[in-house]
């Protein structure tokens, strides 16, 4: 199963990749901004996307809009430190299916992957 991680922080992408690979046999794709996330999604159609919000070029909300425009069934989970009510509302309106507040914990990650990748 394919998972796309979109975060401008190399450290976050690395940590998330390691955590996800401990949970199972996944193929991980990485993007460092919203624009490349849309391109990588279109090419690989992952079962799940973890999307940061604050990023250069195109932010996470913009990227969710772009991905959902391409694939209305896309499963995008926001993964951000800025879990304000405002951002949560914007993300869900854009089509995100869930919002995880950083720092992410393994059990939350596992539950999210089980929930959205199992639905595929």
């Amino acid at each position, binding site marked *: 199963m394919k998972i796309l991680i979109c975060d401008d*922080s190399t450290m976050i992408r690395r940590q998330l990749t390691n955590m996800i690979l401990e949970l199972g046999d996944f193929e991980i794709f990485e993007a460092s901004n919203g624009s490349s996330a849309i391109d990588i999604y279109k090419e690989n159609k992952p079962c799940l996307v973890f999307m940061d919000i604050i990023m250069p070029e195109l932010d996470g909300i913009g990227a969710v809009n772009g991905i959902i425009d391409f694939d209305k069934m896309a499963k995008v989970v926001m993964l*951000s*430190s800025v*879990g*304000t009510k405002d951002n949560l509302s914007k993300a869900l309106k854009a089509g995100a299916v869930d919002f995880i507040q*950083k*720092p992410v914990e393994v059990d939350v990650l596992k539950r999210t992957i089980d929930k959205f990748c199992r639905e595929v």
Partner: protein
Amino acid sequence: MFTQFFGQFLLNNDLVSAEELNIVFQNIKSTRLRLGMIAIDEGFLTPTQVVVINNLQKKHDKRFGEIAVEFDYLTEVNLEKILNMQQSEHLKMAQTIVDLGYMTLEEFAEALNTYKRYYGISDESFDELKNGKVDEVIYNIINTENQVIKEYVTLFYKNIIRFITNEVYISEPVKLNGDEKFKYLFEQKLKGDQELYTAYTADESVLISFSSKYAGETIEVIDEFTIDVCKEFLNLHNGLFAVNMSDMDSKFDLEIQSHKENDVPLGDNLYKIPFHTDFGVVCLIIGM
């Protein structure tokens, strides 16, 4: 954390030297707190009574608590209470300083009272400080009426403890003159109900330790990855701050975090607040 705050106070007031304070910090971890010390602090026994019980111990070869209860110096309830307090940080510090001969118990008690008066710490707040709740102490050190700044600095302190090290204390803010350059500066602006310039800086070796601890992996040089780690810490902290403020109906949006080298922070009325850790000083820079 109490030991770091109070240790700084003792140092600033020439009650101990830097070398002595260092020795105290090294010895505290291995100090086994004597029940007599706790009982005095709680007001259950006087120093004289403790001496009497110690002498009785030698005659009867029994433990301090057993003798104290047998000879009606302590009740069973009080003994149980002090037995549960054997991890008390401030008492370990007192015992270590006294055992090393740097101060007498009376001098230590007097210094503690002066510290509480100086920072306007009530007995209730001091109990909170002993239990690791430092909000009021931090408010008193940074000395600002701006509630947003108070919340920000306190959260930064708590996030240092949460993600980096629990051996940290802060000292008083220093106003920046606008010309001071910093070798490494990690910045992020927050915009919303008010505009907030935030940044932090540290020396190279401190940043290497800081980023190693935050990333949870060995980092030995400042490279692109280290810079990324340092920026991400500020981003995480500011995100958590925005969430807290949002819960208080105060809105903040984050701009992209950045870093600069050999440059000055941009903003008005900036102060740097030193966070002293076990691996060096990290300075938070904020407009106050």
